[in-house]
């Protein structure tokens, strides 16, 4: 039991470490690698910023921020990050000394160098990234300018051609956009401007800066630019109002969204042109546009100016592009360098930060040469930890030895079950309900068998079970490669974590499916049937089978087609689920005996276990016995009507001693005796324990102890009297008071020695009223629950029936229809089989395996949490959470993955 500690929590001891302050970092980091100590906060009253190592943690916080920044830039530039090669840095905890020796933490100077390097990198990268962003925004400005130039061009062209049609424009020559290939203009510079006339040239010179245009005879000024499409309407409205309609507006949407280099968001923008009169109005338009975050660009209606502007913009763009490319290359080069290392840095920083935040929990000794730490440790690992620390001390060569003291205490230790990859999933089922009290029986152990079994009773089908088994098997066989997978999806991750549960559930369902003789709702004819159908009957005639033997195992397939098969199955499964439920509850109740025995609480054995046991067994145990008895009697052979057990049970209460349909001789007397036993148990359970506790308390007071803690609170706070006379834990015998044994042992060992006593809260004095009220509640709950919990197990029957019927319906609605003779459908039948099989299989997996499986699993969960665990489980413990690098790093990774999702 010592090394396994799955049935009960491992023995935990409180240990005090004296670590010389110069080697404290190394020591703590070794303890982190071992991952076996849960440190207690020694400075609860000290503010978080007043602790000793807050400077260091702050430094690493800053480095972490820098790393986050670098990472975000790396992600933005899409430089791949090497991660896999550092997976080995997240090593699982070890107690092996040689392994530990190889895991030297980086020295402080190494860490400082690293912090410095990251700082430098951050400055560099930030500078470059800023320049890059700056260039990008200029680039996008220029691009927008170009789009505006081109966009307005088409507009002007259309306008001009209109004028030409009207025949009142002599100034501009016809130039349709189709004449010249726009693209070619953009890229190559055609120096000659064949369509340009002298006239237009002069116009240009006059109006180049005023950007005026002659439209239909009147001189209009205009401005153009871009604006967010969704703001265009606002712009239009405001302009219309403020210019009182004296304007002409046009817009061309830009098809491509434009990325804002600052925020990285994409906006749809559109090009607009506004025509109006006069400089003042134009000025006002300009202001309004700018206030709505529009960008204004200079455009000219004149073709030659347009050409010149376009070429200018293109030149600028080309220059900018080459600069941009250079900057990017340099940035990426730098980032690649960082990307190689960043994962390692992150891991080291995380570890380092963890070390210092742990050291913040420590206390300085008065001379400030040593750090004092306290922590919980499994008793068996004490020597390993000691030798590891000795190793570190030797390696560092300090003269102050690291001292490890075991200190006796009355604090409640944390609960620690050693689990492996198989048991941990089952343990988590229990932990999700509550952490077991220290050293009470762990219901997670029996759950390994009962959980899949309860599930299987509801999910009994050989085929479905096999599918589940296969799926779980894949997860189990590929567990290593899946474990390396990052960004597992949430549901998938759940299935992965519970893969061994699924595997067991699949196996058990195959077994129950075999018992129920169900394979995808069809029955298997493995053995010779025990029933014989008569031969030579006409179609439509009802026939009766005669029994010829006994089917070797499971349900006879002859029942499958029978008319009364449902009646048979119902009665059988209902009784079966009562039996299963009773067995489940009954053995759970035995654990309370085991617990009371372990904690040496005689009062609990006599006051709650025995009456509870008698109550449950005299009513429901008796019911189970009669069920089996009824099965074993050949009622038809005896030519008697089989009595109804439900009526029997009801009448047992309503008219004791009187039996309508006797099951066996002397039934009345037996039932009266059983009933009276059950009735006696109620006051017994109600009164014995409170009275016994009160007597104990009175005795203690008479012996001179003041304020003996007998109440439930005492269990948590310890049972030691505040005097120096050692242990009086024999009085604290309430519900197997958790510590009484622990302190018993300790005080036996250190009878006269000093015992650390620090109560988190003062134990409440014994209060008879409270104890009485609690016991009344307990008694009422126990009696009522034994009825309702037994009934609750009927869900086993209901779900199993539902599952069976649903799969039968699915079969008959889909695949069964496809099996017809060849003459009826011909070759088409093949396709029908093909498609119907597909449908049947998909629905089987989706509805019957996944949905029904989930529901059956939840019901099984409930049966464990509510029906079984309520019989013995206290669940008042707290989880053992050792300081371990492995845990910190993996949890951190999971968090990161979660954030990405």
């Amino acid at each position, binding site marked *: 039991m010592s090394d396994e500690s799955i049935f009960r929590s491992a023995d935990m001891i409180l240990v005090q470490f004296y670590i010389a302050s110069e080697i404290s970092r190394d020591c703590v980091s070794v303890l982190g690698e071992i991952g076996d100590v849960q440190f207690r906060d020694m400075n609860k009253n000290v503010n*978080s*910023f007043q602790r000793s190592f807050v400077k260091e943690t702050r430094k690493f916080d800053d480095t972490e921020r820098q790393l986050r920044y670098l990472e975000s830039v790396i992600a933005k530039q899409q430089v791949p990050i090497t991660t896999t090669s550092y997976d080995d840095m997240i090593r699982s905890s070890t107690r092996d000394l040689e392994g530990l020796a190889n895991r030297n933490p980086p020295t402080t100077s190494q860490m400082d160098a690293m912090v410095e390097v990251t700082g430098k990198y951050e400055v560099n990268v930030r500078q470059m990234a800023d320049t890059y962003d700056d260039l990008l925004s200029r680039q996008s400005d220029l691009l927008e300018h170009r789009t505006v130039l081109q966009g307005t061009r088409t507009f002007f062209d259309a306008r001009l051609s209109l004028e030409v049609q009207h025949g009142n424009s002599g100034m501009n020559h016809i130039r349709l956009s189709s004449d010249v290939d726009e693209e070619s203009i953009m890229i190559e510079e055609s120096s000659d401007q064949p369509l340009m006339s002298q006239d237009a040239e002069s116009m240009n010179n006059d109006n180049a800066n005023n950007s005026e245009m002659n439209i239909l005879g009147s001189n209009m000024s205009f401005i153009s630019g871009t604006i967010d499409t969704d703001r265009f309407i*606002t712009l239009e409205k405001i302009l219309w109002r403020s210019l009182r309609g004296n304007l002409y507006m046009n817009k061309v949407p830009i098809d491509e969204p434009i990325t804002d280099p600052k925020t990285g968001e994409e906006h749809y923008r559109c090009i607009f042109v506004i025509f109006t009169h006069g400089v003042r109005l134009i000025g006002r338009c300009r202001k309004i546009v700018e*206030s*709505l975050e529009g960008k204004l660009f200079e455009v000219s209606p004149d073709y030659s100016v347009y050409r010149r502007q376009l070429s200018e913009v293109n030149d600028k763009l080309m220059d900018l592009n080459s600069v941009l490319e250079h900057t990017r290359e340099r940035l990426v080069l730098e980032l690649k360098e960082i990307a190689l290392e960043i994962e390692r840095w992150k891991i080291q920083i995380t570890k380092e930060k963890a070390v210092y935040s742990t050291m913040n929990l420590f206390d300085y000794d008065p001379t400030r040469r040593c750090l004092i730490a306290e922590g919980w440790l499994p008793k068996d690992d004490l020597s390993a930890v000691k030798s590891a620390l000795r190793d570190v001390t030797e390696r560092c060569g300090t003269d102050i030895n690291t001292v490890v003291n075991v200190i006796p205490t009355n604090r409640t230790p944390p609960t620690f079950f050693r689990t492996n990859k198989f048991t941990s999933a089952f343990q988590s089922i229990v932990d999700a309900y509550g952490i077991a009290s220290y050293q009470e029986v762990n219901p997670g152990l029996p759950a390994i068998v009962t959980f899949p079994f309860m599930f299987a009773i509801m999910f009994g089908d050989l085929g479905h079970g096999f599918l589940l088994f296969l799926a779980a098997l894949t997860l189990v066989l590929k567990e290593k490669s899946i474990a390396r997978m990052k960004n597992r999806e949430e549901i998938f991750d759940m299935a992965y974590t519970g893969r061994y549960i699924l595997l067991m559930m699949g196996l058990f369902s195959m077994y129950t499916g075999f018992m129920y003789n169900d394979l995808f709702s069809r029955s298997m004819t493995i053995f010779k049937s025990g029933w014989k159908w008569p031969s030579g009957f006409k179609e439509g005639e009802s026939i009766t089978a005669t029994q010829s033997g006994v089917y070797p195992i499971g349900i006879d397939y002859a029942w499958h087609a029978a008319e009364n098969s449902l009646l048979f199955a119902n009665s059988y499964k209902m009784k079966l689920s009562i039996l299963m439920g009773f067995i489940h509850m009954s053995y759970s109740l035995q654990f309370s005996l085991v617990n009371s025995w372990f904690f040496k609480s005689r009062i609990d054995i006599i006051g709650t276990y025995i009456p509870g046991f008698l109550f449950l067994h005299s009513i429901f145990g008796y019911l189970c016995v009669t069920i089996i008895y009824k099965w074993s009697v050949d009622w038809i052979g005896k030519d008697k009507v089989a009595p109804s057990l439900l009526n029997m049970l009801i009448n047992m209460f309503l008219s004791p001693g009187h039996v309508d349909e006797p099951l066996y001789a002397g039934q009345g007397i037996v039932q009266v005796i059983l009933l009276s036993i059950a009735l006696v148990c109620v006051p017994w359970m109600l009164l014995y324990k409170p009275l016994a506790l009160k007597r104990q308390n009175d005795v203690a007071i008479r012996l001179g102890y003041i304020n003996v803690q007998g109440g439930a609170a005492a269990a948590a706070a310890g049972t030691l009297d505040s005097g120096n006379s050692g242990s009086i834990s024999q009085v604290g015998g309430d519900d197997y008071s958790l510590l009484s044994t622990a302190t018993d042992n300790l005080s036996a060992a250190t009878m006269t020695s000093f015992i650390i006593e620090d109560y988190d809260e003062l134990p409440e004095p014994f209060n008879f009223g409270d104890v009485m009220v609690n016991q009344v509640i307990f008694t009422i709950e126990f009696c009522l629950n034994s009825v309702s919990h037994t009934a609750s197990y009927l869900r086993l029957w209901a779900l199993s029936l539902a599952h069976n019927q649903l799969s039968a319906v699915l079969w008959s609605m889909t695949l069964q229809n496809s099996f017809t003779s060849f003459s009826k459908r011909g070759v088409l039948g093949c396709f029908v089989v093909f498609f119907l099989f597909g449908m049947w299989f998909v629905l089987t997996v989706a509805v019957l395996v996944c949905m029904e499986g989930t529901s059956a699993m939840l019901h099984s969960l409930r049966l464990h949490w509510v029906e079984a665990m309520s019989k013995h489980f206290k669940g008042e413990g707290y989880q053992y959470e050792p300081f371990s690098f492995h845990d910190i790093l993996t949890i951190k990774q999971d968090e990161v993955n979660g954030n990405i999702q």
Partner: protein
Amino acid sequence: MEGLFFNINDGFIEAVVRGYKNGLLSSSQYVNLTQCDTLEDLKLQLSATDYGNFLSNVSGVLSTSIIESKLNDNLVSQFRYLKAQASEPLSTLMDYISYGYMIDNVALMITGTVHERDRSEMLERCHPLGWFDTLPTLSVATDLESLYETVLVDTPLAPYFHDCLSVDDLDDMNIEIIRNTLFKAYLEDFSDFAKTLSSPSDEVMCRFLAFEADKRSINICVNSLNTELTPEDKLKMMPGLGRLSNPAFQHQMVHSDDLEQLKIVVNSVGEYKNFFDESNDKSMEDHFYEYEMTLCKNAFTQQFTYSTIWAFLRSKEQEIRNIAWISECISQNQKDRINNYIAAY
């Protein structure tokens, strides 16, 4: 009865608000904050609260303004989240809440334009909750009428403007008058709306709004002492609700020539008695805040109301003011005044 159907639409929001409320700093947390020696300490201390590591991505030296802006971001995101979840009539109520900030923003923009401040600087100082699309364009026009006709007519504030369009030139005084006139119209409208809410939202909301109105009335009267505003002008700005809104009070208030006369009027309302009490270094403003926090605290005792949102918003704003005050005291090394914050929870 109102509780029966409340949770269908608003239960979630109420739960979220109460969750937010529980995240407000408690007095013991404030005590911890006041013990900080540097802003870094403050950051560490705040990271243990609901704010979490909201400052962890700030590089460089911390300053009060950075902390305050981050705190404000936090408030705004919480408000937006609530608003996104809200359905009628709560969403209208939240709209109304944001109108108040809009009025402030409008006044700020106009003042800025009059003083020819930089537009982007002004926009930064605007409260994000009172943001509306055409807010930046307010910097274009220089007289109120054109502002109204071009921009404001589209905003929900338009109806509140009909009383103040007569103001011709925009100077600081007139802007303040406009602001108060707008607030008067706004508060009256808001309280009309609040009265249509189901009970007890209407009751609690009206209590808040009444205090808001009284606060404004007192402020108007105090600030307009020794100015050339006529009593009639003042009367135009006094909201028609609140405990001081009864004509007799209003008449006395606007005709007060000095603080003493005003005090007498205000003191005649029991709850407002100590507003002018200047012992303990407390200004009138502090008394207002304190009284408002009591109102908020009381509002949280009611369930099935929309007023919790208002109460939460105000409490959170107070908290931001408190943290800003504490951090300002820390950075200016004025530890003796650090305890002048108003902790309600």
